[in-house]
């Protein structure tokens, strides 16, 4: 007897829908799991991820909070310690700064500070990134800042598959896990292979193999980087594209393995260059693989400005496929 087609055929869906399915499945699977955040229930989520879920699962499991970021993130930490498995949604990374105290001073420290008596099995999801002309208080990519903090695990699902499957292992992780969803990905469609029932939250993945240069990216930048790789291919340059997936802890073996093969690397990061995640990756490559490089390490990052409103300025501030391709080209063909 052959399996029904529906269980094997890939399903096309948006990234948003994949996030939503992940939340629904996690809540249905475990009575300790619930989601709370601003406008997640009645409004349906500021990026519509949880639309309809409160009706389906009840407002105890999809809980609206007042505008009290430090308060409800801290409550999530307390509830996690007390035995629940909360998923806290913060509308965007810019607003997570109001909860930075609880995330950095409590969530990230309690297991160590208590000598291992307590763990904080908390998941915090939030949107990140620019591209929607939302200006300087809604557009930043501050995930690199969180990747600086010991005690946290930082995930950046870029594909529909990761959006669908990274949540469950994040909930099972005994430590606080931050999940960053890039705003430009929510409407993006992708294939979900029903035979894949889970993913890890440990490794980076090679999304496109190539021999000439390694392009390291994550989140919203993955697709601009793949676009850049396509541009390079036309010129006969084969770029290997790595999707970091996990910003902390970094999967250095995958990055170094690729760089040792291609001997050239460009790191793409929507965060600002100074003191960034890209700086950390560059430093580690220099520490571990300096003598195997044929060219200097290059980076394509956001320009060092608060993201402006005007479309042409915003575009100029953010990394673009053409810039990524141009940077890789100079490495391969020489400046």
């Amino acid at each position, binding site marked *: 007897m052959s399996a029904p087609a529906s269980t094997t055929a890939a399903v096309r869906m948006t990234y948003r829908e994949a996030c939503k399915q992940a939340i629904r499945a996690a809540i249905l699977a475990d009575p300790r799991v619930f989601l709370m955040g*601003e*406008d997640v229930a*009645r*409004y*349906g989520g*500021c990026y519509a991820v949880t639309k309809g879920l409160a009706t389906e699962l009840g407002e105890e499991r999809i809980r*609206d909070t*007042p*505008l*009290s*970021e*430090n*308060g409800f993130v801290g409550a999530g930490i307390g509830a996690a310690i007390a035995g629940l498995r909360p998923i806290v949604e913060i509308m965007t990374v*810019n*607003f997570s700064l*109001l909860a930075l105290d609880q995330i950095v001073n409590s969530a990230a420290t309690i297991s160590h500070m208590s000598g291992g008596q307590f763990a904080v099995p908390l998941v915090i999801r939030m949107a990140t990134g620019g591209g*929607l*002309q*939302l*200006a*300087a*208080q*809604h557009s930043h990519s501050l995930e690199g800042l969180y990747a600086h903090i010991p005690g946290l695990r930082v995930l950046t699902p870029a594909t529909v598959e990761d959006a669908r499957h990274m949540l469950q292992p994040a909930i099972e992780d005994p430590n606080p896990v931050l999940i960053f969803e890039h705003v430009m990905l929510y409407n993006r469609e992708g294939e979900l292979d029903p035979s894949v029932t889970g993913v890890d939250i440990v490794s980076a993945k090679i999304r496109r193999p190539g021999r000439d240069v390694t392009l390291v990216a994550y989140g919203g930048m993955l697709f601009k980087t793949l676009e850049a790789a396509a541009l390079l291919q036309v010129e006969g340059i084969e770029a290997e594209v790595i999707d970091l997936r996990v910003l902390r802890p970094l999967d250095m073996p995958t990055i170094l393995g690729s760089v040792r093969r291609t001997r050239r690397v460009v790191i793409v990061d929507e965060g600002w260059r100074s003191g960034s995640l890209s700086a950390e990756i560059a430093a580690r490559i220099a520490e571990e693989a300096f003598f195997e490089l044929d060219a200097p390490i290059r980076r394509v990052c956001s*320009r*060092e*400005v*608060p993201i*402006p*409103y*005007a*479309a*042409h*300025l915003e575009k*100029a*501030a953010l990394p673009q496929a053409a810039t990524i391709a141009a940077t890789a080209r100079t490495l391969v063909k020489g400046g």
Partner: protein
Amino acid sequence: MTEKVHLDHAHLRHLLTAMLRIRRFEEKCFELYQSEKIRGFMHLYDGEEAVSVGVIEALRPEDAIVATYREHGQALARGIGMNALMAELYGKQEGCCRGRGGSMHVFDRATRFYGGNAIVGGGLPLAVGSALGDKILGRNAITACFFGDGAVDEGSFHESMNLAALWKLPVLFVCENNLYAMGMALERAEAETRIAVKAAAYRVASEAVDGMNVVAVEVAAKRAIDEIRRASEPFLLECRTYRFRAHSMFDAQLYRSKAEIETWRAKDPVMQLRSWLEQTGLLHADEIDHIEGEIAAEVDAAVAFAEAGTWEPVEDLERFTTMDRVPQ
């Protein structure tokens, strides 16, 4: 010394004009958003005009204003030019912030308009500091700080009330209580929904006023400001109002009923004043038509100005990230 509100023809005409300018400007903004001339997040003030017009009427030129992302009304009432505002919404360099801020981040040095803050509650501590500066520098000015009911949920509201009271600072806290923070109804967000009452915990004087009645708002604001200047202490004015439109341009409004919106629409501050003026014979229909005509021309001119505006050169992108000197 109480400055009386004179309910004479000239003043009432002025109040109606001020509210109508905001209303018509924003109706145009709505259209321009549909045609993608304006992008990003845009939050309209439709229904709440009496709050900014009434409060700002009570301010002096030397006073300062701190506002939120829903600040077109405050900007126009304060005298920021419609041209500069519209150009800002277009993202043109002729805009009041050179197109870098957009709808949510209007600033204007000339009128001491300190933004345009899109972090809920973000403006309150800034208002405390502005008043502290005025006090220490011996300026006889107050700071009016506008914020929504949602900001009351944030710690910054409570910290700011206490700081202002503790340091005896001239801040007029103006809560625009429109009963919702996005889709979050006030009674689902606050255990004590009477916002004015909370002030007592900080020993701040307060009053709640009908925010749909511009004269009532102006009278209450004048009284509050007299009290601030007399006692050198902050004051919390809760203006009970309602937004007729969606929270922003992306809001299906699943959280409230059409009937509720209609009930509030019957209290439309612009219509209320207009029909009262017509009924009492203080303003004739043809004079109102004349005002409407002038406003329509001003809005058209603002659109033309914004259309003719230019894009800031990309080479200037990093300008103003830091400054060489403090502007005087």
